[in-house]
């Protein structure tokens, strides 16, 4: 899974597969971080007011 695991090889299959994986994980991570951070900022700026979102 990580390049420091001993079965890791820098070959095409590993790069494609793990590339895809880490790519997906980064998107999920970034998306989540964005939502959480933005919510904190929003909460501060709206002074704790609820927001209509529908």
């Amino acid at each position, binding site marked *: 899974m990580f390049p420091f695991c001993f*079965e890791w090889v820098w070959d095409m299959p590993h790069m494609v*597969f793990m590339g895809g994986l880490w790519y997906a994980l980064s998107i*999920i991570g970034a*998306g*989540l971080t964005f*939502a*959480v951070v*933005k*919510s904190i900022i929003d*909460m501060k700026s709206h002074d704790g007011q609820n927001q209509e979102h529908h």
Partner: protein
Amino acid sequence: MNGMPLIPAGVNRCSKRRFAFWMAAVTAVLVWGVYAMFLIWYKGLNQTRMNDAYGFALWIWADLSVIALGGGAFFSGFLTYIVGKDKLANIINFAVIIGFICYSSALLILTIDIGQPLRGWFIFWHANVHSMLTEVAFCLSCYFAVLTIEFIPLILENPRLAKKPFLNHLTHNMHGVMPIFAATGVFLSFFHQGSLGGVAGVLYGRPFAYREHVFIWPWTFFLFTWSAAACGPCFTILGIWLTEKITRKKLVKQDVIRLLAKISGWMIITYIIAKTADTLYWAFVTAPSRGFTLMDFYSSPTYNIGLLFIEIVLCGFVPGLILITRKGRENAFLLMSAVILAVMGVSLNRWVMVLQVMAVPLFSFDDWFTYMPSWQEVATTILPVAYGLIVISLAYRYLPVFPQEQELNPID
């Protein structure tokens, strides 16, 4: 805080007593399953009737089936967020819940199924990128994470939680980035649905399962994704229909259902044509090159050629044709028959691609291998059903799952 209502505003729910009674009944089944599960963890897989010939059995079928049926989530998400079928936003919550249940169940079943559950994480840590199962494990868990993320905003819409400012903002912001998650989910789903097909298709030692490859993917890779996308929505429709029957309420407008049914119908028809082509090529080119005739694979009383007919014609072409015709979709009986047939069809396909693969003898001095699950296997397979019912019940009671419910069931 305690004064806040738990039940969403503007909808009617049954009495606490009645709900508790229902939950107790389902929980009893759940406890039975959990008991079996612990028995298996404690005593080992000898509690099952799997054997060296039948290393994959009931669970793997259940696993593949729930994932295929949970395919409604990714495909609805794809249609709603990416294609832009806004109408489907009315069922996307339910589709996500079904998906969540299916995928969490699948992961649970996998932890029961492996001989050394404490080493389960080796699949990530020591991943073999050539194995279809590795691909399944990665995409499955990632997609489960996505489903959880998709489920969270809905949970946060519970009236009591929605009062918290941070959670309120979080809901809003998560909705904002949802198309990105949905797209990621579609990407992951495409691969893991496919790699589940690949699991069987790459088995070149098993001529019943083996299929010719396109690049590194066997045909079953595409057929599995395709069939999950085609039949998953049918399971969503079936779920909605059952919920409506149980709650005795109309929850989703019929035009939404019909739209989903129409898309599903076209998917099924195209899928089954592809599946037919695949079957013909396999039966007349791939298998004979390995010394097998088609009937070699269907020579047992259990696994006879009738199965192929049921899978392709009865549970493939028939529901597909019903769903692509307007009259079929508009007739409630035909619609639901088609939906049930399609769900059965995809489940049967998964059954065949797991259990029949194991059953077919490869040597003339071997007989067909037989297998009957033990009660522990049955209990742990029913466990997700009970679990699913509990999650749906809770979600339906406390969360605004169906946006059209208020409109369809106005409270005087």
